[in-house]
């Protein structure tokens, strides 16, 4: 499951009838954080939308701000040390920045589920997995305990846990890594959310298991007609699952577009570099190359395009910050020289 040799999912066929409003609507999201007196900028102005039923990938290196972006969608960042600002930040119709604690709690796990990277650390180690799912169902759908228990067992077998009725009474450490990620998926979709945020859901798993979990994720998405925001640094994973992709670098979006457009003809040198850094089975002679230099972090002062120090196309014009502009309709890149990118 590594590498872009996996066929790119056709973007046009996957969309169901368009929903009235986007599930996620982000405009000019900025996230600052304080570490020992210093102020860092994790996200420096990001705007995007996710329509219902759509699978969107968020790609970028470690520290590019992708997890912070995802966590701020549900305001899961620690209040004391971070500041989240946006012109608009709406998830499933809820104004996240203005919402009360109660409506945030209803949103979290209700209309929006989250799956984290490390499935052992994300399940409560001291509680039986069944009761963890039951809790979510009870809280968000108001079912009785008995009804919720039945649903939890159903859900466990739905995500592929054999002997679900008995296994529901086991603790997280009694499951394998893949099974734990299945259980985590079950808790995230227990209340039939409109949006599923998956933060590197397959990174901690071996390749075969990765593939199975992605199949399950796609399956659940079609079944429940969820929108999915999939965060990954693995372009192969993104290509397989997502209709559309957002590429982040240095806290900004540098490229967006349908997965096939972006992967076939990247409009930003960073995206092109990412694609070149993957070994390809379909082009045996092609040279794999890493992107030179180091990624910017939140403390770097950035003037103009953040990618300049690592960019082979850098020119004087790049000292001004480029905005996202159409490369082709529906495919945008934030680069002055995107027509030169190969």
């Amino acid at each position: 499951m590594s590498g872009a040799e996996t066929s790119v999912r056709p973007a046009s066929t996957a969309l169901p009838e368009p929903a009235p409003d986007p599930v996620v609507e982000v405009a000019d999201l900025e996230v600052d954080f304080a570490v020992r007196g210093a102020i860092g900028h994790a996200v420096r102005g990001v705007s995007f939308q996710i329509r219902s039923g759509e699978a969107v990938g968020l790609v970028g290196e470690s520290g590019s701000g992708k997890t912070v972006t995802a966590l701020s969608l549900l305001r899961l960042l620690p209040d004391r040390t971070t500041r989240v600002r946006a012109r608009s930040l709406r998830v499933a119709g809820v104004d996240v920045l203005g919402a009360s604690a109660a409506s945030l709690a209803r949103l979290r796990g209700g209309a929006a589920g989250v799956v984290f990277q490390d499935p052992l650390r994300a399940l409560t180690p001291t509680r039986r997995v069944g009761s963890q799912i039951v809790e979510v169902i009870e809280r968000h759908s108001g079912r009785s305990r008995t009804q919720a228990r039945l649903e939890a067992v159903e859900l466990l077998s739905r995500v592929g846990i054999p002997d679900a009725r008995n296994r529901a009474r086991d603790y997280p450490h009694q499951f394998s890594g893949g099974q734990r990620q299945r259980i985590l998926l079950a808790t995230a979709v227990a209340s039939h959310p409109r949006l599923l945020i998956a933060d590197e859901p397959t990174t901690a798993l071996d390749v075969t298991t990765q593939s199975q979990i992605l199949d399950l994720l796609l399956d659940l998405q079609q079944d429940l007609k969820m929108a999915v925001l999939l965060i990954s640094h693995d372009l192969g994973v993104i290509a397989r699952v997502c209709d559309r992709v957002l590429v982040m670098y240095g806290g900004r979006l540098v490229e967006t577009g349908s997965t096939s457009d972006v992967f076939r003809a990247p409009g930003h040198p960073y995206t092109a570099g990412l694609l070149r850094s993957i070994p390809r089975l379909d082009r045996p002679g092609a040279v794999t190359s890493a992107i030179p230099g180091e990624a910017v972090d939140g403390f770097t002062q950035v003037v103009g395009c953040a990618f300049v120090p690592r960019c082979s196309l850098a020119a004087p014009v790049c000292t001004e910050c480029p905005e996202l502009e159409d490369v082709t309709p529906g495919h945008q890149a934030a680069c002055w020289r995107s027509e030169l990118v190969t």
Partner: protein
Amino acid sequence: MTVPLAPEYRGTVSVVRDFVTRTRERHRPGTPSQRVIVGALIVLVLISVTASLWAPYPASAQSGASLAPPSWAHPFGTDELGEDIFVRFIYGIRLSLLVAASTAVVAGVVGAAIGMAAGYVGGLVDSVMMRGVDFMLAFPTLVIAMTIVAIVGPSTATPVLATIVVSIPLFARVARASTLVERQKEYVLAARALGASSVRIMVRQILPAIMPVLRVQAAIAGALAVQLEASLSFLGMGVRPPTPSLGAMLNTARQYLSQSWSYGVFPGLGLFLIIMLLLMLANSMSDDGDAPLAKTG
């Protein structure tokens, strides 16, 4: 299963076998040494709680000569009023165990709640609560306990109240420190991402995780409470005579050391036994490491 069985019985056999293995796994918590220590404490509790049923003499009534040495009729001898020291010793142990248990439970619940709230909420709540805790920890426990006795006035409940109040900061400190570690973990974030409230996370995610530490602290606090109650009673600020207390017995025995060796020795041994058992329990539990995971296996 080597014996061939009719198909209709196989289900039953596997259910029974399952039941046997499960009960075997589940009903023997703790290490062998913990089971011995807890067993000894349970025996002490049973003996002392049922004392009124089998004790040959009442706790406070003359039953023999004054300051008699140990004999078959009076295994630990008699005190200056001719009361049986063994019976008073048993009742004294009952009081010490009551003090230990109520302190461990009440101070444990209150202290853990304070510590978890301070650690989880943080900020101003944390500062205010922890300065209060620091203030109490800055004074010797005996001084605080004596102040409480002076305010409330001596009664059977007063030393219990005093030991509870004095022990709360111990639990609060430990609970706060463990909560700070636990709340960083991803499953707490995951629970929040699924809409769990702060109170719910504290009770269902954090409390089970810090329980092993709190259990150790409970055993230590129990031992300290026994010692503190004995000190108060020794100073005449504990339970009122004639209610038997090991500390008060030691105090009286001090005046008769030259006449009766047994009067002082046995109450002292009683205190030693209870405190040692509780501290051994604390010690063995703190060796468990990640107890909740190890135990559920």
